[in-house]
C-alpha cells in the first residue's frame, strides 16, 4: 500500500478544520517568522481590530531586509547609515514587537540576522512543523522536513491573530536526484539545474520533495540552499524528508527540544522519514554526476547554463530581451565575461559552509582590481563564528568588504546595490531585472563560482582554482 507523502502527513497533522469543496482547511501554524518589511500593515490590522498576537511564543521576529549592513546597534546609529524610509520601518518593527509582546532579535541582538538563517540556527524549525513567513524564501525551512511557505501581509495578519491560515492542500511533486556532485559543483548548481529543467512556473500549485541518494548525502546547509530556491520554480514549498543529518543539526540548539522532550520529538520525526513508497502527483529525475558549475545568463532563475555551455542564440523574443538587458552575447558561454561586483550572501548562501568554501578558494589570493566584493554573513552568529575561524581576515586581506548580517545586495532596499549596467556574480536567488538595484545585471552562482569570479575578474570556473 502506498505511503502518504511527507506533505500529506504534515498537512493531516495540522488541520484544525478539514477542507470541504466550499471552504479551505484551517491549518495550524507551528512557527511564524516575522521581519520588518511585510509586517507593519498586518500589525495595523490587529491594532485597528483590538486583537492581540495569539501566540507570541510561536512568533520569531528579526530584522534583515531593509536593515543596513553597516554597523548600527541602536536606532541613533541606524539613522546615520540607513535610508530614511528603511529606518522608519525598523523603528516601526521595534515598536510593534514591544506593543504586541513579541520578542525581537533586533539591532542590538547577537542573534539578529536573515530570518531564514536565524530560524534553523536557533533550532526553531523542526521536522513535521508548519512554518510560514511573509517572505517567499520561507521554503528554506523545508530542508528539515517541515512544510514551509511564503505568505502575503494579509495572511501574516491572519497568523498573528489566529495562528492559523486558510489553505487548500497543494499537490506533491518528487524530484529524484542520483549521482555524486563532482568537485567544485555544489547544491546551488544542482538547484539551478532543477529550476532550469522545471522552468520558473513548473512547480506552480505544488510542493517539491527532493529525494534520492544525492540529497541524502547533502549537509543541512546544502539542503537549505536547495529548498530555499524551490519558489524560483514556482513551487509553493520544497522539502526533504528528515533523517539523522537533520536530527544531528537540531540537537542541542537553543529552541530545539531537550531531555525527555527530545526523545519524544525524535520518535515522532522518525515517522516522517522517507521509506520510498509514497505516491506523488508527478516525478522528475536528474543525474547530479553530470553537472558542471551553473550560472544564470538571463533575467529569471530558469535562464541558466553550465558555465562553459553557450547561452542560447538569438531568435526567441523573451531570450533576446533578457540577453540585451544583461549585455550578454548570444550563442557564447558566459565564462570569461567581465565582472564588476561579487556578492557572497543572502538566505540562499550565507551560512558557515558557504563562507568557508569561498574563503578556502580565496586564501592567499586577491580580488581582481576591477571588482568590488561584498561578503555578508547570514546572521550575527555566523559573523562571529566566521571571525573566530579567521575567515574575515581571508576576505579582508583579499580586498573584499566584510559586513554585518542582512539581506544586503540580494534585494537592494537597504543601501547595498549593484549599480546600473554593472554585472554582479551573486550567490543570491533572483536575477530579475533591477532586483539588485535599478539596471543591475545579476548572474546567480554558487559561493565557489562567486569567489573564483572575484579573483579572476571574470565569470570563472572554480575548478580551475581548486587544488588537486
Amino acid at each position, binding site marked *: 500500500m502506498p505511503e502518504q507523502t511527507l506533505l500529506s502527513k504534515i498537512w493531516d497533522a495540522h488541520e484544525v478544520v478539514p477542507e470541504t469543496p*466550499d471552504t479551505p482547511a484551517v491549518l495550524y501554524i507551528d512557527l511564524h517568522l516575522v521581519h520588518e518589511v511585510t509586517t507593519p500593515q498586518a500589525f495595523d490590522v490587529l491594532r485597528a481590530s483590538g486583537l492581540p498576537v495569539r501566540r507570541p511564543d510561536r512568533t520569531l521576529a528579526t530584522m534583515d531586509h531593509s536593515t543596513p549592513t553597516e554597523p548600527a546597534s541602536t536606532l541613533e546609529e541606524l539613522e546615520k547609515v540607513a535610508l530614511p524610509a528603511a529606518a522608519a520601518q525598523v523603528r516601526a518593527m521595534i515598536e510593534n514587537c514591544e506593543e504586541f509582546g513579541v520578542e525581537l532579535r533586533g539591532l542590538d541582538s547577537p542573534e539578529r540576522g536573515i530570518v531564514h538563517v536565524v530560524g534553523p540556527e536557533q533550532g526553531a524549525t523542526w521536522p513535521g512543523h508548519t512554518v510560514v513567513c511573509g517572505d517567499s524564501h520561507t521554503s528554506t525551512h523545508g530542508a528539515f522536513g517541515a512544510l514551509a511557505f511564503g505568505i502575503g501581509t494579509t495572511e501574516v495578519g491572519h497568523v498573528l491573530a489566529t495562528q*492559523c491560515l486558510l489553505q487548500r492542500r497543494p499537490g506533491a511533486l518528487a524530484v529524484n536526484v542520483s549521482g555524486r556532485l563532482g568537485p567544485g559543483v555544489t547544491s546551488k548548481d544542482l538547484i539551478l539545474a532543477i529550476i532550469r529543467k522545471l522552468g520558473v512556473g513548473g512547480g506552480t500549485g505544488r510542493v517539491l520533495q527532493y529525494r534520492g541518494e544525492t540529497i541524502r548525502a547533502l549537509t543541512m546547509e546544502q539542503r537549505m540552499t536547495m529548498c530555499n530556491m524551490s519558489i*524560483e520554480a514556482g513551487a509553493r514549498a520544497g522539502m526533504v524528508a528528515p533523517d539523522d543529518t537533520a536530527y544531528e543539526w537540531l540537537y542541542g540548539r537553543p529552541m530545539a527540544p531537550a531531555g525527555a522532550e527530545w526523545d519524544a520529538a525524535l520518535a515522532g520525526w522518525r515517522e516522517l522519514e522517507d521509506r520510498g513508497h509514497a505516491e506523488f502527483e508527478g516525478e522528475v529525475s536528474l543525474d547530479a554526476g553530470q553537472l558542471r558549475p551553473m550560472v544564470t545568463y538571463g533575467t529569471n532563475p530558469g535562464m541558466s547554463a553550465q558555465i562553459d555551455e553557450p547561452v542560447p542564440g538569438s531568435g526567441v523574443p523573451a531570450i533576446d530581451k533578457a540577453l540585451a538587458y544583461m549585455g550578454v552575447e548570444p550563442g557564447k558561454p558566459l565564462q570569461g565575461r567581465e565582472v564588476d561586483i561579487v556578492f557572497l550572501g543572502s538566505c540562499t548562501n550565507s551560512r558557515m559552509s558557504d563562507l568557508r568554501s569561498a574563503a578556502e578558494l580565496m586564501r592567499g589570493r586577491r580580488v581582481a582590481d576591477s571588482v568590488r566584493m561584498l561578503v555578508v554573513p547570514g546572521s550575527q552568529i555566523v559573523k562571529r563564528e566566521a571571525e573566530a575561524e579567521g575567515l574575515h581576515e581571508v576576505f579582508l586581506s583579499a580586498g573584499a568588504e566584510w559586513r554585518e548580517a542582512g539581506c544586503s545586495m540580494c534585494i537592494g*532596499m537597504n543601501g547595498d546595490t549593484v549599480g546600473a549596467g554593472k554585472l554582479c556574480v551573486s550567490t543570491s536567488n533572483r536575477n530579475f531585472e533591477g532586483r539588485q538595484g535599478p539596471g543591475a545585471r545579476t548572474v546567480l552562482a554558487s559561493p565557489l563560482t562567486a569567489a573564483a569570479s572575484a579573483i579572476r575578474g571574470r565569470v570563472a570556473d572554480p575548478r580551475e582554482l581548486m587544488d588537486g
Partner: protein
Amino acid sequence: MEKIIRIQSRTVVLDIDNVDTDQIIPARYLTTTGRDGLGEAAFHDWRYAKSGELNPDFVLNHAENRGRTILIAGDNFGCGSSREHAPWALLDIGLKAVISTSIADIFRNNSLKNGFVPVVIDEKPHRWLLANPGAEIAIDLEQAQVELPDGPPCPFEIDRFARYCLMNGVDQLGYLLQQSDRISAWEASH
C-alpha cells in the same frame, strides 16, 4: 471590502511571460509601513525612463489605456517575491483584474485577499486576448466566466470560498476568528 460581481472593461495587454513581482513593484519601494499610494511605484522601471520621464513605449502609458481595468498578461504572472505590495500597487493604478494562462501561487492568494481578481483561462482564448488589445470583455464572478465580444464565454476555475468572499465583500480574517474555539481545542490537544 467592496463586493465584486462583475468587471467590465476594455483590456490592456502586457504580452510578457513570467512578469515577476519585482517588476510589478521594485523592492526599493517596499520601505513603507502603509499600503496606500503604491501606484506611483507600479511597474516603475518599465513605466519610467532613466530620466524619470514616462516611457512612451510602455503599454500602461498609452493614452487609450487610461481607465481600463483588466490586464491581459503573459504566462506565470506574479512570480517571485511574496510582497503583497504588488496587488496593492496594481489596484492603486486602477487595475481590477489580471487574466493569464497561469498565475503564481502567492501573488494569486494575495490578490484574492485584496479584491484584485486573478483569472486563469485556456491558451486559445488567451492567445486571442493577447492579439486583440482593447477588446471589450467582462469577468463574471457569478458564472465564473470571461465574456468575449464574440463567441461563447470562457469558463475559469476559482476557489469557491475565495469567490464567495469577493462577491460578498467578506474579510477572511473574520471567518478565521469565528473558528477560535476549534483552534483553542486543537491547541489544547497538541
